[in-house]
């Protein structure tokens, strides 16, 4: 009997300690970062909670921004999820998030739903990405594809496609497809701009995890795949890049727009009502000031300067 009570008391005490420890950690964390940053920035310390979600392509940029921002404003709690562009917009429409990252422009139906819910939003372009078409290292027949060929390869025609169906000189072997999942903006952009809304080959392996695509293409000689430029940059030595109409995606060709139609802008959509909150305004201002630099540091390409100037003009309307 005593043992039992002893046990109960111990377990209760443990969980109380556990809860207490969380609280204590929090305070310690806050005060230490406050003292360390208080000296460098004379900005007033804001407080608030900001929630975001959206594209996995944009998330490395957003993480870099949030990481740096939290050093200047430790009391503004920014929490960002990675549910994909479509999943992010779903939460944005539901009013669960203050901003949504997107690797494609908002769709008409999403805009209509936002209107229905009475949510006003502002679009900010924060960086450039080039969707990179990759094949296996051992693939010696493809150097360059035209957009037309790309479309021919990826469109579903109801039967299994072989490389020789596209070009007679290519091997008589079945093509294996690796594509980002349907919740991703990369998929939407590709289907929209390359396939012109036709069905993507149904035999394709779809994954929200781009590393699955990288390993898939890496392991199969007959594979072809596409994903954001940052994933190609990080896996350059494992994959072979395909030129599109003679242009290879590089930092310069993406920024100049020569790599077309596969270079695309990345966006952040912000809820207008949320922007009236000083913390959210401050965060967006910081994000726009640093987006270009942060994008470059994680493998993307910064947008032209006038894009950011335009963005800031849009943001200033919400200044109080």
């Amino acid at each position: 009997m005593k043992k039992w009570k002893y046990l109960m008391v111990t377990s209760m005490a443990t969980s109380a300690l556990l809860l207490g420890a969380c609280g204590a950690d929090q305070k310690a964390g806050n005060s230490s970062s406050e003292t360390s940053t208080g000296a460098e920035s004379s900005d007033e310390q804001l407080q608030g909670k900001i929630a975001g979600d959206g594209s996995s392509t944009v998330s490395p940029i957003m993480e870099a921004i949030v990481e740096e921002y939290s050093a200047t404003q430790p009391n503004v709690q920014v929490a960002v999820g990675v549910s994909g562009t479509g999943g992010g917009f779903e939460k944005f429409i539901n009013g669960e998030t203050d901003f949504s990252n997107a690797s494609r422009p908002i769709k008409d139906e999403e805009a209509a739903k936002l209107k229905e819910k009475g949510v006003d939003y502002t679009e900010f372009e924060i960086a450039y990405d080039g969707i990179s078409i990759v094949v296996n290292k051992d693939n010696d027949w493809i150097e360059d594809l035209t957009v037309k060929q790309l479309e021919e390869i990826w469109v579903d025609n109801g039967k299994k496609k072989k490389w020789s169906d596209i070009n007679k000189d290519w091997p008589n072997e079945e093509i294996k497809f690796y594509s980002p999942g349907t919740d991703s903006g990369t998929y939407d952009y590709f289907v929209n701009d390359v396939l012109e809304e036709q069905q993507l080959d149904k035999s394709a392996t779809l994954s929200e995890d781009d590393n699955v695509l990288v390993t898939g293409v890496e392991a199969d000689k007959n594979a072809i795949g596409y994903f954001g430029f940052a994933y190609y940059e990080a896996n350059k030595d494992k994959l072979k890049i395909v030129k599109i109409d003679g242009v290879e995606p590089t930092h310069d060709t993406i920024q100049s727009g020569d790599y077309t139609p596969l270079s695309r802008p990345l966006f952040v959509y912000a809820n207008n009502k949320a922007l009236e909150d000083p913390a959210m305004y401050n965060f967006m201002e910081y994000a726009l000031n640093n987006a270009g630099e942060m994008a470059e540091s994680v493998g993307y390409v910064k947008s032209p300067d006038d894009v950011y100037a335009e963005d800031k003009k849009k943001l200033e309307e919400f200044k109080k």
Partner: protein
Amino acid sequence: MAYINHEVVERQMTKRRTKNTVFKNLFLGATLLALLALVVLMYRMITQGAGYLSLDFLQNFSSRFPEKAGISAGLVGSLAMLAVVTPVSLFLGVGAAIYLEEYAKKNKVTTFIQMNISNLAGVPSIVFGLLGLTIFVRMLGMGKSILAAGLTMSLLILPVIIVAAQEAVRSVPGSLREASYGMGATKWQTIYKVVLPAAIPGILTGSILALSRAIGETAPLVVIGIPVIVQFLPDGILSEFTALPMLIFDWAKRPQEEFQYVAAAGILVLMMLLIFMNSIAVFIRNKFQNRY
């Protein structure tokens, strides 16, 4: 005439012996294969992750630089979630078990409830995630908070705890109850003073194993939409947070190869936490069980 035909016995003996050896080796092989998988997994995790494991790793927030990335937000978030899951699931689980074992009449309704609890234990965790998203996050407006995630996880492990607690309560010998009633104790007095103390070790063992499942479970958190880019520690039960498995999942998806090692280090932390919790369960079982 001899009752035993030695020739036949002799002949069958070798056959039976061979059979015996074959099955022994077959089962040994099965055990070793399972063990091998575990060893390979551990070996890979330790060789990949050990280099990134340090005090800083436990104290830092996640970062875009693999060498600066840390797990503090996830560790504190997971423990905070556990602080919600533990009381809720224990209270509801043990309560339901006591009702079903001690109070409920053994009729069709009870059997029906019983059957459904067993079925619930087999429902995929992602379904509980959808339930949590609809009810706690959206309908009750808790948002993607520790409370919402904790309640979802409680629902997930509740069936397991109920079944474990029922087993424990059932295994308390009837003679103890009879003795208690014989002394003039009421039902509640009997449960509180006799049945529960005898059943507690079994209940706790089952519960801790269930709680470790709650810590490692990822699918419901993904469905709820728990954020991963979190540079703050939770400051209350309604605060947004991130959890260990979410961070590991996020790191494993990164393009840079170094983040695979960071993910491995995260897995090591998670495994140590699980091993720690499971050893508490083993300790309780060995120390307190079978006292009657």
